[in-house]
């Protein structure tokens, strides 16, 4: 793969977006909110603008924790939107309308505390500070991936205050050049990478993580890594056909590509790779 092609793929992944239609019931009426979300972003980063919109129809909604529901499944706002779409919606034609819109229900009561991370912080005007919680989550994800890659989280802890702020601003505002300018300071040189942060996501289940050490003579392929996982082994032992998905792409053709190349291409903003498994 030449450098131009790589840049083209990275660019397409960065600019990937999803059409979303939220439905919110007030009394017997249903109100909609339609927007385009970045695949690499997080729902909680959109909650403030969503709450502001529905304030026109219902007072005080900004003071209540929002959450989204897909077919009775609470949508995890701390995971990338693209990943959630690939696992929850893409296999379900029933929830898609013409024009490929992902329909979700917006809820403002009965927050499922046992399934979603709660929003705890309020702003001085008593509205919920949605950004605070997602920032905490992503910073901790970045620290965790930094630890896996480097063997410690020193590199991220040693970022200057400006770099730390820039990194968050880049994630929040979807600014690729700003993001890359700081993120490369966390990533070690290729020869120094200890472990690849790798997650298999199946909705409703704990995140399945596979340790991917690179300090071996022969660099493992994606297929080698997947076969180490109990879930994948179980699928394979039953001769069930499956397809790995990342960023909405079927990457079956990359099963024999070395894991580092796959990671460089497809890592998310928190430097993890999240893979979803779909049965054929």
């Amino acid at each position: 793969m030449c450098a131009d092609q790589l840049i083209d793929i990275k660019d397409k992944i960065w600019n990937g977006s999803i059409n979303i239609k939220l439905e919110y019931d007030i009394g017997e009426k249903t109100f909609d909110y339609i927007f385009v979300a970045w695949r690499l972003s997080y729902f909680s980063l959109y909650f403030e603008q969503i709450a502001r919109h529905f304030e026109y129809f219902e007072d005080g909604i900004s003071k209540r924790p929002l959450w989204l529901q897909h077919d009775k499944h609470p949508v995890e706002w701390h995971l990338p939107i693209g990943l959630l779409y690939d696992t929850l919606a893409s296999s379900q034609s029933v929830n898609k309308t013409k024009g490929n819109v992902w329909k979700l229900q917006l809820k403002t009561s009965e927050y499922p505390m046992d399934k979603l991370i709660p929003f705890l912080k309020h702003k001085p005007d008593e509205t919920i500070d949605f950004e605070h919680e997602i920032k905490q989550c992503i910073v901790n994800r970045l620290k965790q991936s930094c630890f896996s890659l480097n063997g410690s989280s020193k590199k991220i802890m040693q970022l200057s205050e400006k770099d730390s702020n820039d990194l968050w601003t880049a994630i929040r505002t979807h600014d690729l050049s700003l993001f890359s300018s700081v993120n490369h300071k966390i990533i070690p040189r290729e020869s120094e990478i200890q472990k690849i942060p790798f997650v298999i996501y199946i909705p409703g289940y704990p995140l399945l993580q596979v340790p991917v050490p690179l300090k071996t003579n022969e660099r493992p392929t994606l297929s080698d890594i997947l076969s180490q996982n109990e879930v994948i082994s179980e699928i394979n032992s039953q001769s069930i056909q499956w397809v790995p998905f990342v960023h909405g792409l079927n990457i079956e053709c990359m099963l024999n590509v070395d894991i580092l190349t796959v990671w460089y291409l497809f890592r998310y903003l928190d430097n993890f790779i999240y893979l979803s498994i779909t049965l054929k």
Partner: protein
Amino acid sequence: MSLLHSESDTSSESSTQNTASNSSKESVHRPSIIQNTEGDIKHIVSQATSDKNAFKVTIRFQPIGSTPSITPRVFKISSNSTISTLKRFLIKRLKVKNNLIYVYIQNSFQPLPDEMVGDLYNLFKVGNELILSYCHTVAFG
């Protein structure tokens, strides 16, 4: 079967048997989407993460700052338990009124509630233990 089993601790704490009631059955949410569209995956994940495939992980709980310690500090826990189970256990043991406890691995990052203890052990163990530091407030920003 109890979820958490204490183990003799090298730092001379007592090793009385500990149980965390209500936590013995890990309540992993199994949404209807999987039943409806990917019934096979539901079955397979249940098989693969079932108790028969689980192993015991040694956890050492380490308080940060003025947060009280628990006795004993070392427990054995099933690898398919999640961080949210451990947090519930700590909240109960420490009788935390606001139900808030912050848990850290390697004195560095907070794991997500839906991460599995076995996976974190494989990635971040020190010796043969996964060290979990905990605090009433945010300890590492």
